């Protein structure tokens, strides 16, 4: 059985991570980089991703390592999130945001979809006030502006 080649990644604080090649391939950024350059002796620096977030991302990719549908992932907006993914996303907002940014930077589409769906679910079926509370946003509308917008769309 062939040994997977391994890749060395460095997070923004300098922590090193060793992962298998096929897990790294889930990230289109890494995949293309590695295809172009071939085997690298040195670590790939990821200055935009912190250590803990990188751990989380690797966790995701490892769990979905054998998933055949990984890349043809659902464009179906109504598709349900499966259990493991749901649990995975039960993190505080800050972490969730960083995951989105990391998924975007590393170009991991399914993780991007998952995190966006999660944020969308936080927005759905809420009133504006509830949304403000959830995301800690101040209401800067003047009262009449607010009315007008409301009228606008219904």
């Amino acid at each position, binding site marked *: 059985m062939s040994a997977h080649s391994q890749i060395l990644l460095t997070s923004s604080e300098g922590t090193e991570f060793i992962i298998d090649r096929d897990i790294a391939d889930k990230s289109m950024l890494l995949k293309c980089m590695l295809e172009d350059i071939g085997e690298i002796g040195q670590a790939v620096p990821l200055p935009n991703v*912190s250590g*803990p*977030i990188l751990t*989380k991302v690797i966790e995701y990719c490892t769990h979905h390592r054998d998933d*055949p*549908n990984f890349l043809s992932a659902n*464009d179906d*907006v*109504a598709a349900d999130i499966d259990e493991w993914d749901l649990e995975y996303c039960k*993190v*505080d*907002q*800050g*972490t969730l*945001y*960083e995951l*989105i*940014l990391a998924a*975007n930077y590393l170009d991991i589409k399914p993780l*991007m979809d998952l995190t*966006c*769906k999660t*944020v*969308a*679910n936080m*927005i*759905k*079926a*809420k*009133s*504006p006030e509830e*949304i*403000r509370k959830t*995301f*800690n*946003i*101040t*209401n*800067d*509308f003047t009262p009449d502006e*607010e009315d*007008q*917008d*409301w009228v*606008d*769309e*219904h």
Partner: protein
Amino acid sequence: MSTLFPHHILLTMSPFDIPELVDQLRYYLSPHDLTVCVRVSKAWNAMFIPYLWYSVPPTAYLVRREDDPPLESYRRHDDRFSQLVQRDYLSTLLQAHINNNNNNNNNSNSPLPVTSRNGRWIRVLELQQSFLQWKPIPAFIEHAATEGETTPESPPDPEFIFHMLQQCTRLQRLQIEGRVNDAQELESWSKILGSGLPRTITNFTLVIDYPRVQIEQRTEENWDNGEEEPLPSLRILNVTCQSSRLYSPPLLKFITRCTHLESLHISRLNETWTGVLGECLHLKSLRIVIFDTKSAQLLTDELRNGLPSLANIHIDCYFEDMRDQDLANMFSACRTGWRSINAPCIDKLAVEAIVQHCPTMEELSLKRAHELSSKHMQQILSSSPRLRSFITLIDEDDSLPYIDASQILALDFIDADSSSDFLRPWACESTLTVLRAKILGIPRPDITKTYSGRPLEDGMVLPEDYVGQGQDIGRRVYERLARFTRLERLELGHEDRDVYYPSRKIRGLDDIGHQYTCLEMSLKSGLRILEGLKQLRVLSVVRMATLIGVEERSSPSSDPTSSPSTYCSASKSTKNGTSPLIPLLWHTIDSSLPTWHKILKEFDSEHAQGQMDEQWLQLLFNKYAHHIRALENPGLTFLHMSRNLRRLGNLANELGQFHHKALSGLKNLVTFSDPYYRLSLPALLRSLPLVKHLCLELPRWNRLLDTLELKKGLVYIGDVFNILKHCPNVVYLGFEGVRLEPIKYFEDMEYGDDVEEEEVVLFGVEDAKAVLGGMVCQLERLCMSRRARFEHMQQFLPLLPYLAKCHFEEEQH
């Protein structure tokens, strides 16, 4: 998970600060969600407004890719939208008026009207002239009155359209449905087509009608003089008309402005088009109506002299005497091979011309082709290396039912080499994904009666040359089918009876077109050979005398885990894509009921006499039960119960027990359509958790059985919410032929019970909330009959936040 590093900084930054990420997020938010988002804060408003206004009227979710089919649009408040547009138009007029009168007093304090303000975000627009009809707005009249002026004449409706278009400076896709009622409107339309379309437009669909104007007048005029700016982005143009009188739209000069047109769909050509069509250098797709020889020849000339990029052609033909030679000429006229051909009625010459395109052919659709012979079909299938879709049967939703005569004979389909008896390889074996054709010519000694139980006539079945020949041939047909490894849709039959108008049913009509020399579709005959078709998603065996539903004794060699009923062994479907034998079975329950027609006839006369024979009913149930057993297939995801059953209204109670048993096993059902929702209701509420599309019809109102059926023709609003509660994934709920009853749902209420006036309690919003228990309904489409009386449902709309389309059907008596 604890926080990572100091978040004081991070909390102020969020993905909402990055436009590209918001761009991703918006695909998951429905229009309703967006309206909420724009009210959160100014920053959010600015972020989400473009998406909210991206498509007017809004679609359920935004389409991701250009080639995705357009989604259903949101027609909840058509009148509100038209009011918005009118108010916009009027305030612009008013503003201009005021500015004229008060030269230096520029009233720039008043905010721009809504559509003007947001027009620049609109990318997809759909307008219907009938919805934009002029209704004078009080404020305007008042203002005019105070100024001592008369209310201006109502502008022609197209003016609103023009005005709207002026606001949409970046529009990409436009669809307009309109009418030209008089000369004044014609002028407005000329203006729209001449200068009204924004330069950015890529996709333009116009459905126009001339109900009252003479056709002759139209041939001379053009809608614009061609001197306006070119429209370089326009790729797709559809201009069709609604009326039955086909005419040629005066679009010649317009076409010359569309320098990069790739797809054109128009109603008709006439002589004035000579030379123009051929100039469309980039045209890849053409869809056109041919209605006489002259237009056929015209098109042929254009094809010969121009249209160098044309690859897809779709011809609708509305006359019977289309000459074979004309069609043949047309098909031969093109110099490069075509990729897609969709054409009707053809004969030998035309087929030979089509065969020339085989090397490049990818999609072929020859419906209503009487003269397409079996050998021709064999020739096409065997020599088209790129063929993906081969269709000879009309679609289910075609307006007129049609009994397709074209068929491929089993022996031709098998196409075995005469000396070695191996199946000759066919070029499209690894590419074909859609096959819709009748395969006939298989001897079936098991068939002894027709569909309606009458004795067989000559020529209906084939006799065997030797015992077992039928089985052998059938097996080889399966072998050939199994070679199409990428096959996704296999449709060997289609509904060609006119099921919507029972009064038109002629006795015995059901026998015509029913296939008696078709595949058996039983395990014994070799159905398992199709196991290799892992991509198969749709199988249709409608109107075929198959043995589906008949119990088979498991033979010693077969899998011991297989149950006697046909497909059960196959249904251990797993999640990861290893498909069972036939993943989806598209099957109307009555497809093999021989005596159905007879029973219905008897029932009508029995009932008229007010008698109901016990014994006869028992017989009926036995037959019905036999087919219910065929449903015991947990892999089944799409089930459509026959509409014919609806005539058995009175038997609802008795049939209920069978219904219940059968449905409770279908755990994976996603789409379910049933004429007897009352029968299904208990099973539904307990065991169909994955159902997304529910279509629960009820018997049509039958005049004879007036009182009786009326009581059964009810759905209680409580039921609706019960269903939504227990089937949380339902996105489409259809009740046809139904009267909506606002009474509270009594669990133990029997059919036919008369409820005392004072006992009646109306089901209200609070009750609905109690039933739902906080669950958010995913329902997006609701379809009911007009008798439903929308006002009953209206109060519940806030509980259905995703409801985009509430559709009321016309009743048909």
